[in-house]
């Protein structure tokens, strides 16, 4: 048993190393060329005349790791195109819509745990209560969360994560970050995400179940399910400024979610 755990840890360690190496290689590959030293005629509408450093542009988001983030963005595009989306398409192909909806609700129900802890942490007792009620109703009447009768009864989902909790207590966004596979985030929300994941696995449903393979399967399904219902595709907006647009929209979206 102990040996197996060590073996598994080794494997995880190795996987992590390969992944880290890959990221480093990618970052190196992304390194920018030297600036062109050409004496060029200024254009009709030059930046120097039209971009005023004193003006606040919403498109500018604090992004000190922009080089790294852009590489991650490109990595995510390739990961999406060659691995993630084909898997999601395969999943959609083999799974009837009806089953997909059941899985969607099942996953949401399990994650009520995170909504509950974060509503509680933000002292939103009514919302925390609604969340408990939703979980009880959907787990029983909704048969293990496969259906969502609670919403029909007027008990709407009260989504909260730890990033929002931090925001609620006045923690700022911090630097913008593009996470591998998961995409846009920032330091506050990444901290939140890690906290949520750790809390969820140590004190939430995985801990109650204490079954590693079940947890892994659940993680996989969660990831596929999440991507299934997210229509965003990298580099399909048609904008040469997509990286910045997404950065701005992510920031706005989180501001909206924190601001209540």
């Amino acid at each position, binding site marked *: 048993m102990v040996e197996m755990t060590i073996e598994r840890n080794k494997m995880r360690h190795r996987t992590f190393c390969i992944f880290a190496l890959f990221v480093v290689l990618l970052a190196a590959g*992304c390194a*920018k*060329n030297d600036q*062109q030293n*050409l004496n*060029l*005629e*200024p*254009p*009709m*509408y*030059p*930046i120097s005349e*039209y*971009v*005023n450093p004193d*003006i*606040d*542009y*919403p*498109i*500018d988001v604090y992004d000190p790791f*922009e*080089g790294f983030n*852009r*590489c991650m963005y490109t990595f995510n595009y390739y990961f999406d195109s060659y691995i993630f989306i084909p898997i999601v398409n395969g999943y959609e192909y083999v799974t009837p819509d009806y089953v997909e909806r059941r899985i969607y609700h099942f996953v949401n129900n399990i994650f009520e745990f995170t909504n509950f802890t974060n509503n509680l942490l933000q002292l*939103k007792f009514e*919302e925390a209560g609604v969340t408990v009620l939703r979980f009880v109703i959907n787990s029983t009447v909704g048969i293990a969360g496969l259906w969502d009768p609670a919403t029909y009864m007027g008990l*709407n*989902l*009260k*989504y*909260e994560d730890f990033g929002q909790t931090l925001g609620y207590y006045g923690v700022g966004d911090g630097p913008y970050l593009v996470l591998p596979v998961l995409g846009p985030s920032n330091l506050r929300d990444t901290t939140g995400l890690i906290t949520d994941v750790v809390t969820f696995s140590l004190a939430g449903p995985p801990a109650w179940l204490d079954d590693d393979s079940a947890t892994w399967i659940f993680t996989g399904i969660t990831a596929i399910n999440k991507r299934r219902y997210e229509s965003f595709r990298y*580099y*399909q907006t*048609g*904008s*040469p*400024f997509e990286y*910045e647009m997404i950065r701005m*929209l992510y920031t*706005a*979206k989180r*501001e*909206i*979610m924190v*601001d*209540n």
Partner: protein
Amino acid sequence: MTQIYRVLSTWLCLILLSCGAANAYDYPFTDPYVATVLGTPAEFAAVLPEDVPIKNDSIVMFPERKVPGVLWNFADLNYSYIKVDGPAPLIFLIAGTGASFESEKMISMQRAFYGAGFNVISLSSPTFTDFVVSASSSQVPGNLEEDSADLYRVMQAVWAIHQDEMDVTEFYLTGYSLGAAQSVFLSQIDDTEKAFNFSKVLLINPPLSLYNSVVKLDKMLEDNIPGGMDHFAEFYQKVIHRFGKVYKNGDAVQLNDQFLYKAYLYDKPKTDEPTAAMVGLSFRLSSVNMVFVSDVMTQAGYVVPKGLVLERNEIIIDYGKVLSQLTFIDYFNGIFMPHFKAQDPTITETEVISRMSLRNKEKYLRNTTKIGLIHNQDDIIMLPGEVDYLKGVFGDRATIYPHGGHCGNMSYPDNVTAMVGFFKGITQK
């Protein structure tokens, strides 16, 4: 005798009632700006097929064309197609300004025409970035004649790829907004080249004078941001804050149409300013994208210095900031006119502007009965009198709805019925 009266009066009542029902048009938004921004929310929209066997593909139109690193992901032209079993018509759909083949309106049209049993090929607007980079011959978008000729070449190339797998009985064509204006030119090109022999062509909310419409859209942004574009950040913060109040602890925020509709219901705007600004903003954003790629590809020296090579990971947002302050008139003077002047030094602005108008095609439109029109009386891109002019030209081939703004009602059941009915030969008046 009294019995007869009773029967007669009941009968009269029924007639009156049915007339009333036929005339009522219950599209939910009477404010044209709101209609344009919100479109048709799901609860009011026509019920259309969910599972559509749509396939995406891409094509290279100019294999020898070199695309600079910064535009690496626009080097191929993307499009989609739907193939149905057995013999059926094929309809080409052309997207509106700055829109791709998979814009929300295109998807709704695809579902409607697939539901009607047609094969469907969807093409992005010649003003969409990958089209400008990979399929436009001049790479100076906005000229209806050239853009339509490019579209026609793309249609033929795409058809050549798929002709063996589709059993096509006849060809149809439709487009909305700018795509509708291009459809007129496409129909005319096809009359001489006869690659498709379109048997029916439907125009949905075309501009009459492209120039007038575009100038109007430009003004919507600049006139409605309090304090002008330099104060855009404040306007933006206000909008975000307002959305924040709407959201109040719901599902994870998806910044989509449904969310916009919720925001509208929660706090209806008291004036047209914010909605008009949003329409103008959306137009400005597509112009920024379009003009940037045109500038880079043609080396026009507009915002990017002539001769500067932009690499793949170059940070280019400052060019975007410059472009976000420039209007269509700036583009017209800076890139568009010089492009025409290069071909014909004697050409005047007035001539170019009139070439970009359907008034120029009046005779063709009057006499070509295969072309139909769906428009809205309150379309915000039209100047006063322009819709009535089109009504006069098309006569009974025009269906004009009292409201819907610019393309806002395209997914509304009456509109979908009219759109599909036009091709199926069912008139509903």
